[in-house]
C-alpha cells in the first residue's frame, strides 16, 4: 500500500512538476499559458523520437547509468517520507540520515553525467557541481539536524509528529529558506544550477539528446518532488492538518514548496561558482550553525 502510494506520488508529482515548470517559465516571461498542460508531454514525445547522439569516446556505461542513479536517489529518498500517518515505505529510526546519504550521492550522479560525455562543457559543469554541491549538502545537514531536535529522533515520522503543537517553520525560521536553497541545488535550478547552466550551453546535458535527455529531465523533476515532500514534512508539518486526509495535506504542502522552489529559480540570478562558494561557506553555513544553535536552545527542557 505504502509502496504503491509512494510510486504514484513520485510519478504523478513528476508530471505535475513538469507542468508547473512550464507554467512558471511562461508566466514570468509573459508567454501565453494556454495549452501548457500538454506541452511537457509533447516535448517528452519529441525526445523519444529524437536520436540518442554520442560523442567521441564517451564513458558509455556511466553516461547511461547517471540518469538512472539520479532518479533512483530521488525514489529512495522519498521512501522515508510518511505520506500519511502510518503510510511510509521505510519508517527508519535514522530516516534523515538515509535522506542525507541520497542527497550527497546526487553529486556523484551529476558528476558522472558531466564526466562521461568526454566534452568540455559537460565536464566543467560536473566539476562546478562537485565544488558547489558539497557546501550545499553540509548546510542541509545542519538544517535537518535542527528540524530533528524537537522530535529528539532522526525518524521523519517522529519529526512530523513533533510538529503537532507548532510547525518547524515557525520554530526555526531560518531552516526552510536554507533548505529551499538545497532544493535548488539538488534539482539544478536557477541560482544554484552550476551543472546544467546557461553559461555552459546546458553543461552536463549539452551533449545529450533524445531519450537520454528525457531520462535526465525526468530525474531532475523527480528529485524536485522528493525534495518538496521532505521539506513539507520537515518544516510544514507534513501530513498534519484538519478536515482533509493526511495525504491531501502533504500533497498541498509539497506543491507549495515545489512552486516556491521553481519561482526562486526564476527570480534570482546565478553568480559565478567561486563567489557562490564564498557565499555558502561565509554566510550560509554560519547561518545554518546559528539556526541549529537556536533549535538546540529551544529543545532544552
Amino acid at each position: 500500500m505504502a509502496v504503491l502510494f509512494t510510486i504514484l506520488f513520485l510519478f504523478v508529482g513528476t508530471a505535475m512538476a513538469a507542468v508547473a515548470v512550464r507554467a512558471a517559465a511562461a508566466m514570468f516571461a509573459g508567454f501565453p499559458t494556454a495549452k501548457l498542460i500538454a506541452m511537457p508531454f509533447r516535448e517528452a514525445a519529441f525526445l523519444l523520437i529524437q536520436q540518442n547522439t554520442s560523442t567521441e569516446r564517451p564513458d558509455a556505461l556511466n553516461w547511461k547509468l547517471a540518469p538512472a542513479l539520479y532518479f533512483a536517489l530521488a525514489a529512495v529518498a522519498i521512501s522515508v517520507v510518511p505520506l500519511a500517518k502510518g503510510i511510509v515505505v521505510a519508517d527508519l529510526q535514522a530516516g534523515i540520515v538515509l535522506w542525507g546519504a541520497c542527497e550527497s550521492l546526487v553529486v556523484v550522479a551529476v558528476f558522472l553525467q558531466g564526466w562521461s560525455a568526454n566534452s568540455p562543457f559537460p565536464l566543467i559543469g560536473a566539476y562546478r557541481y562537485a565544488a558547489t554541491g558539497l557546501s550545499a549538502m553540509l548546510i542541509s545537514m545542519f538544517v535537518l539536524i535542527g528540524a530533528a531536535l524537537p522530535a529528539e529522533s532522526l525518524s521523519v515520522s517522529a519529526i512530523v509528529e513533533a510538529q503537532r503543537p507548532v510547525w518547524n517553520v515557525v520554530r526555526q525560521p531560518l531552516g526552510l529558506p536554507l533548505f529551499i536553497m538545497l532544493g535548488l541545488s539538488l534539482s539544478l535550478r536557477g541560482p544554484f544550477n552550476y551543472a546544467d547552466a546557461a553559461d555552459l550551453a546546458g553543461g552536463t546535458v549539452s551533449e545529450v539528446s533524445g531519450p537520454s535527455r528525457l531520462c535526465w529531465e525526468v530525474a531532475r523533476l523527480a528529485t524536485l518532488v522528493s525534495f518538496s515532500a521532505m521539506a513539507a514534512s520537515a518544516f510544514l508539518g507534513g501530513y498534519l492538518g484538519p478536515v482533509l486526509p493526511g495525504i491531501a495535506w502533504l500533497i498541498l504542502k509539497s506543491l507549495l514548496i515545489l512552486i516556491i522552489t521553481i519561482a526562486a529559480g526564476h527570480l534570482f540570478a546565478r553568480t559565478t561558482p567561486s563567489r557562490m562558494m564564498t557565499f555558502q561557506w561565509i554566510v550560509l553555513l554560519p547561518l545554518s550553525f546559528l539556526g541549529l544553535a537556536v533549535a538546540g536552545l529551544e529543545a532544552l527542557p
Partner: protein
Amino acid sequence: MAMKVFAKFASAAPVPIYPAAGSGAEAALDALSLDPRLALVSTPRHASILLVAGNLRDCDRDALRRIHDQLPVPRATLWWETEPLWDARGSQFVSADKDPTDSILKLHRALLCGESASEDDLQPDEPSQPWRGKGEHGQGGEGMMGGAPYGRPMAMTSLDIRDGLQLDSYTARFGPFLPALLPPGLSIEFTLQGDVVQAASVQSAPYSNREHAAAGYRLASNARSMTAQRLRLAARLLDLLDLRALAHRCRRLANQTTIKREAIKPLLTAARRAGAFAAIPPNLAEIAPGNNARARFRSFLGEGDPGAFHRHGRVLRLAELLPGLELGEVFLVINSFEPHLLMRMSPVKTDDQPHKGDEADEENE
C-alpha cells in the same frame, strides 16, 4: 498508425532550433525567439532544425558543417536570406522578405511524421586528423602524455596563473556559432585549467555592424536601434545569469517599434531585485576607471554611462582581458561589450573578409 499519431502529438511541441547567425541576422533571430512555438536552443544536440541566417564568411563554413552533423536525427537545415552551402535532402530556403516561422513549423512536422527525409551527415564519421598518439591511449612521448591523438595534444599539467593549483590544461576552440555564449562570428581558442582560462586567442572577429546595415537593418547610430541593440545585449547577459524570463521581456521590448524610456525602467528594477548586477563580480574586466562589466550591463538597461573604454590611451585587446577568469566570467565579459567595441578589441584579419572594425566604429561613434 499509432506512431503517426504519436509523431503528430510530438510535433506540436516548440520546435527546437539551433540558430547560426551570419552578418545582419542576429536581431531577426532574436525576434524569432519571441514566438512560443519556437525554441532557440543553446546546443545543436537539442535541436531538430539548423536555421542559417545572414551571409557567412567562407572561413566559417567548415564550422557550420560540423555543427550540422551534431544535430540528432531527424534534422533539417533551413536557409534564411542566405545561399545554401550544401544541397541536402530536406533543406529549405526562405527569402529575406518572408517570416520563416511557418516554414520551420511545417518542416519540423514533416520530419517527425516521416514525410520529409532527415538530412545525412555532411562529414565522414571519422577523426579529422590522423592518429598521432604514441601508445594505445595517446600516451608516450614527452613524460607520460606527450602524444597528439587525432591532432589534439593530451592534457598536460602546467603552472596555474591564479591559485597555484596545477591541473591538466587543455586547449579548445569556441565559436563562431555558439549563439548562447558568443556574438555571431566570434571564435576564440582557450587554454583552460579546470574552468579557469590560462590563455585566449581570438580566431575570428564577430560580424560587423556595417554588414548589419548592408543587410537592410537600421544602423546602430539610429537612437531607437541603439536602444534595441543594448536591450538585446542585456538579454544575453540575463540569459547567462539564468534569468531567462527577464531576458525574454528585454527582447520583447527591443522588438517593439517604439521603445519608451519608461518601459525600460521596470526591467532595470527587476534586474536589480533579481541580483543580476550583484551576481557579476565587481570590477570584472575594468577597461577604464568605472568601466567594468557590471557598469556596462547597467548602461544597457539605461542606468549610467560606463564612460571611456581606453586604458592609458590604448584599446585593450579582448585576449588580454580574459586570462585568469573563470569560463562563466569570460562569457559575461565578452557579452558586456557592444559589437563595435568588441570588433575593435578582436583584431583578426581573414583572407575573405578584411577587418573593417575601425571604420565601423567611427561611423557608430
